[in-house]
């Protein structure tokens, strides 16, 4: 049997990230932890958009569901971080299913607008219940509440390793998913819904399943973000946070397992670099979006895959 190049590549990336834990200077160390958490979110987005072809503009709602489920439980109910983390993941999935049940009755442009509207309603709801969520100002989660088992999430080293652990889990889960029969059906839905239906697959169930998994990822990322960086605010539920994973996925390569990480990494440092030159970093985001759809709609890894690395999962 041929060596499993795909699996080795992903394990290699994880090993490299582990090596960076020791090698990276403190500034990049913190950045990488954040990038890994955001990459989990983008991976979830990729499962819906890249593999299943569901272009949602409302994923911030699922991210925020995880963020606030975890944050509010810790802050108001005094729950422990493990409980909050699990609650966050489940909240992301549950909200995704609820939105999916309605939004998946539409497709294409209508699907984008419906998801956008639900996310907007969610964002406004967070502002409306400002007494609990403290709206734009947000909740700062105290250091004492950010203990996962015996691990102190506010400590830089622990945070990096926990982020890496969650990322590894999400990455290998994603790889297993896209290689599974269900993963193939997801791609079939993206490529040709009618033909898949003719082959006996129910498009609605498959899409709902993909969206639910996507929501679980987003919820996980949201809960981890809140607990690791200690901040839960409405700005993290705004439409920018729906665009962010879309941007990462488009840049890295839609429908590739490593694309979200690569996209998050490149975009994060691009904005970081641009911020040191000018304060017009929004311009970089906008120009990147326009350039991507114009010149590289398949993203970095998508282009590489089309140019010869056909085995890239």
């Amino acid at each position, binding site marked *: 049997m041929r060596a499993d190049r795909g699996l080795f590549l992903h394990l290699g990336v994880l090993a490299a990230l582990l090596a960076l834990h020791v090698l990276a200077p403190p500034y990049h160390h913190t950045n990488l932890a954040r990038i890994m958490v955001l990459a989990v979110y983008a991976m979830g987005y990729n499962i819906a958009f890249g593999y299943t072809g569901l272009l949602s503009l409302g994923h911030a709602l699922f991210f925020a569901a995880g963020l606030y489920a975890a944050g509010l439980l810790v802050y108001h109910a005094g729950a422990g971080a493990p409980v909050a983390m699990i609650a966050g993941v489940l909240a992301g999935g549950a909200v995704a299913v609820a939105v999916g049940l309605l939004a998946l009755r539409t497709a294409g*442009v209508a699907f984008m607008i419906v998801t956008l509207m*639900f996310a907007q*309603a969610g964002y406004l709801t967070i502002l409306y219940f400002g007494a609990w969520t403290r709206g734009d100002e947000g909740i700062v989660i105290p250091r004492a509440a950010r203990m996962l088992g015996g691990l102190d999430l506010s400590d830089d080293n622990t945070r990096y390793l926990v982020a890496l652990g969650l990322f590894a889990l999400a990455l290998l889960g994603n790889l297993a998913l896209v290689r599974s029969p269900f993963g193939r059906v997801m791609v079939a839905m993206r490529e040709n819904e009618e033909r898949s239906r003719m082959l006996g697959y129910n498009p609605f169930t498959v899409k709902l399943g993909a969206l639910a998994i996507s929501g679980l990822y987003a919820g996980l990322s949201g809960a981890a973000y809140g607990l690791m960086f200690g901040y839960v605010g409405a700005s993290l539920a705004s439409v920018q946070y729906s665009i962010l994973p879309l941007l990462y996925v488009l840049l890295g390569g839609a429908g590739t397992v490593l694309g979200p990480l690569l996209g998050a990494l490149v975009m994060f440092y691009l904005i970081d670099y641009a911020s040191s030159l000018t304060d017009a970093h929004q311009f970089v985001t906008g120009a990147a979006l326009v350039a991507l759809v114009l010149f590289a709609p398949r993203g970095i890894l998508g282009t590489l895959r089309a140019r010869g690395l056909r085995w890239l999962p």
Partner: protein
Amino acid sequence: MDFGPFLLLALMEGLVTAAVLALTASGLSLVFGIMRVVNVAHGAFFMLGAVLAWFVAEWLPGPPALAFAAALVFCPLVVGAIAAIADMAVLKRLNYEPEATIVATIGLLYILEQAALSLFGPDARPVEAPFSFRLQLPWFGYSGYKLAVVVAAALVLLGVWLILKHSRAGLLMRATQEDRDTARAFGINVDRVYAGVFAMGAGLAAIAAVLIVPISQAHYLMGGDPLLLSFIVVIIGGLGSLRGTLVAALLIGLSDGVISTFFAPTLAKIIATLVVALVLVFRPQGLFGKRAA
């Protein structure tokens, strides 16, 4: 104040909102109806109109009425030109593929907002109204300028309707909407029609913004609310149906005026966005549209 006059005030405020909304949304509706493009940058074109109006008012000496009249002509033309360039440089090359154009217009939105932030600054800045006539009702005084906005919006919309129904340009637009390929076969320059429609849509948003800026100040993030409300209006009215857009704008504008006077504005927005999402799910052709979009 008694309930009656209070309601009248709410309705008058709602009417001003409705008029501006109808202008903005008809631009969005036109672009969607003819080009099948969902223009997320529409709010940014609105904002650009207001910001440019401030620059015109700042640079042009003389009475405010003159500067305002100049802005009313100049801003839509500049914003329309920017939109036409964006259409030819980006959207056309994407072949108007729906998902790609949405992503591209999101990018355009970021670029325009950043440009406004860098050139105009983060502060909200006022533009003086062209005249300060006050209409004195028995219960309260009301700004004559706001009523002029309603009249102006109605006139512009009438003009749009006349162009669409009774001019050669309008005929070309309607032909392109009906069937792009057949229109092309008959020698219509579809690319030019598209660029023109995109410019016209953006220009309408700019006019609306110039009209509203003496009431609500120019700010680089002011495009968000009009974009959302325009989406709501266009969807409720039926994607691409201009008449539906007008009826919906009136409906949404008036109810927004009443609800935000008597209840919390955030709650009003939550309800409106949810209603829209549900309308799209259960009645994708809109409340007034005839066939599926």
